[in-house]
């Protein structure tokens, strides 16, 4: 007779092996490595929770300390490869194969290890793809997760930085996997139950909070006049005409400038209530002035941000909060919201080619995708209409009958023609292609495909790619806003003037903007301290961002 419960039996044996080290579900931090050696088997698929912000840092150190003779050839399936320990696992042979989404801080080392064959790469995903595969063919055998606190039954409080945890646990616990959580403290009653205890098999008492990185704090003091100019162009030339209310912002300084211009420049244009009211967005401190000035109605967040907890707690009308009053974030849901419910994504990139493909990799760095492609792509499955979506669709296809015409999501690349270290943002050929050659990847790591991009904004102007009718036009439209980069200097000046006459290219003066008015005094906040003032003292920035 067929055996239909083998996985459950295996799970029970794993729990039995671990239970000896536990008191109930609770395991001392000092026994964490022994617990992992008892529960994990060589070759297992393991999700070591590394999100883009919070990290199961104690469990990753514990796994790294395991005996490679007992634990080896693991297949890591986690969204973020962020801590050095995440890669040390491969150096020690404990892990062998990797499927992931984001590796920002480790981008140089991961590239070297991929190139050196230390890591066997499954694929680099977007968040939603990896989460999706957790439920299809990359289901973890063991999930090592992080929470703020637990009670003795294993009920977890993940706090404001819930992030990936519910998704990871859902995939693991309901497919007979093992869930082990590190928590900052054991309490009698958790403030709210983010993960029910019956999905959690072991709780390791770390005795300290997990590591969180402040990734979304942009110091207004560092915003340049050029970034302010690009922000003015975007507000007046895209947000206003399309009436964009539901959107997602990237984390660059240009989008921070947009956030800080809403209550000043945006107010003067009479746009309050007409644009930027609903966001899929982390709690950006730079958005505080716009929130306080009454611009924003609602924000759903992927994760939290260090120092924002007090502010969020006091503004439940804006943010999603739990019964305890603190933020409830959820990366999977917010990514879905960014993909299907937002009319615009606007963000920065490192390189854009002549077709509008963009990439944040260089030849020596593999940063992964994170969530930008989920947000920065046209959702072909979308069916509900909205004004910006329909208008963008009409821009792209003025011919088809309206009832049969798809709308388009606005996917906007905003940035200065030259980036860090004077590197040009516009290139003939993406470094990503060379990287793909070197690593023998089937696909070059393109962050946003050219056919998804609708607008490019630089200090020279806006290129509306929806209005381009041929690849040649598209190329000249891109060259036409590429400034003094080689790509920009090689433009066909006459063709560019023609595109400008048709409104495909829009210069600052065409929008009634004098570049010399792009002054820092336009920013609603010019320092982190100003943000604290706007928040009424509720925002408590990390020490490294302070100058007081």
């Amino acid at each position, binding site marked *: 007779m067929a055996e239909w419960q083998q996985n459950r039996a295996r799970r029970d044996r794993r729990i039995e092996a671990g239970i000896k080290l536990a008191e109930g579900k609770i395991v001392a931090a000092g026994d964490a490595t022994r617990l992992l050696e008892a529960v994990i088997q060589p070759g297992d698929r393991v999700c070591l929770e590394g999100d883009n912000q919070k990290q199961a840092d104690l469990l990753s150190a514990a796994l790294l300390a395991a005996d490679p003779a007992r634990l080896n050839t693991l297949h890591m399936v986690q969204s973020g490869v962020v801590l050095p320990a995440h890669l040390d696992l491969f150096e020690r042979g404990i892990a062998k194969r990797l499927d992931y989404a984001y590796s920002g801080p480790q981008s140089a080392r991961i590239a070297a290890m991929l190139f050196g064959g230390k890591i066997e790469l499954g694929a680099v995903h977007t968040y939603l793809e990896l989460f999706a595969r957790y439920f299809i063919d990359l289901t973890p055998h063991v999930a090592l997760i992080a929470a703020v606190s637990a009670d003795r039954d294993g009920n977890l409080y993940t706090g404001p930085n819930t992030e990936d945890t519910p998704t990871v646990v859902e995939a693991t616990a309901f497919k007979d996997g093992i869930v082990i959580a590190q928590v900052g403290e054991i309490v009698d009653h958790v403030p709210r139950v983010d993960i029910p205890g019956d999905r959690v098999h072991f709780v390791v008492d770390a005795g300290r909070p997990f590591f969180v990185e402040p990734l979304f704090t942009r110091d207004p003091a560092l915003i340049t006049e050029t970034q302010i100019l690009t922000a003015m162009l975007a507000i007046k030339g895209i947000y206003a005409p399309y009436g964009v209310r539901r959107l997602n912002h990237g984390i660059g300084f240009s989008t921070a400038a947009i956030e800080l211009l809403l209550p000043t420049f945006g107010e003067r244009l009479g746009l309050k209530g007409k644009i930027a009211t609903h966001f899929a967005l982390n709690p950006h401190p730079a958005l505080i002035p716009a929130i306080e000035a009454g611009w924003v109605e609602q924000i759903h967040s992927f994760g939290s941000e260090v120092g924002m907890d007090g502010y969020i707690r006091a503004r439940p009308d804006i943010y999603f909060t739990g019964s305890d009053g603190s933020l409830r974030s959820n990366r999977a849901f917010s990514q879905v919201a960014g993909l299907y419910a937002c009319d615009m994504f606007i963000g920065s990139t490192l390189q854009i080619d002549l077709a509008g493909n963009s990439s944040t990799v260089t030849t020596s760095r593999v940063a992964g995708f994170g969530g930008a492609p989920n947000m920065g792509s046209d959702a072909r499955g979308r069916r509900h209409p909205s004004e910006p979506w329909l208008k963008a669709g009409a821009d792209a296809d003025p011919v088809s009958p309206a009832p049969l015409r798809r709308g388009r999501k606005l996917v906007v690349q905003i940035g200065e023609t*030259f980036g860090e270290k004077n590197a040009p943002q516009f290139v003939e050929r993406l470094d990503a292609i060379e990287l793909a050659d070197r690593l023998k990847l089937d696909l070059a790591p393109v962050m946003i495909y050219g056919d998804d991009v609708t607008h490019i904004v630089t200090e020279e102007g806006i290129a509306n790619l929806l209005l381009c009718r041929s690849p040649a036009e598209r190329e000249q439209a891109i060259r036409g806003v590429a*400034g*003094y980069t080689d790509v920009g200097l090689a433009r066909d000046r006459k063709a560019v003037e023609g595109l400008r006459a048709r409104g495909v290219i829009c210069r600052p003066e065409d929008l009634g903007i004098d570049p010399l008015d792009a002054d820092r005094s336009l920013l609603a906040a010019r320092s982190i301290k100003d943000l604290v003032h706007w928040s009424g003292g509720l925002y408590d920035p990390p020490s490294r961002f302070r100058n007081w």
Partner: protein
Amino acid sequence: METLTIQLQAPQPARGRRAMAIVGVVGSGDLEVLAERVLAAEECHLEISTAIAGFGPVWQAVARDFVERRSPGGVRFSINDGGARPDIVAIRLAQAARLIEEDQPCT
């Protein structure tokens, strides 16, 4: 250090009567521009001193567009460059031109 001199013809003389104006700071990624009304009305010169060599053609292009757009005839622009990007150069040049064309402040 590299020094560049760019001499262009300006269709119109700069407005105003100010003798000179200075904007910007030689900080990282920034530059200072000293504008002096010392040339014949149809001349416009840019004298550039930069720590980053090899960008002559870009300076030429920025200068050409600047003179085409603002026509600051009669003005010599002396530039000390701390490695500014072309967009910042264009902004500082425009600021300097605007400032030298402002009316003399009352004293």
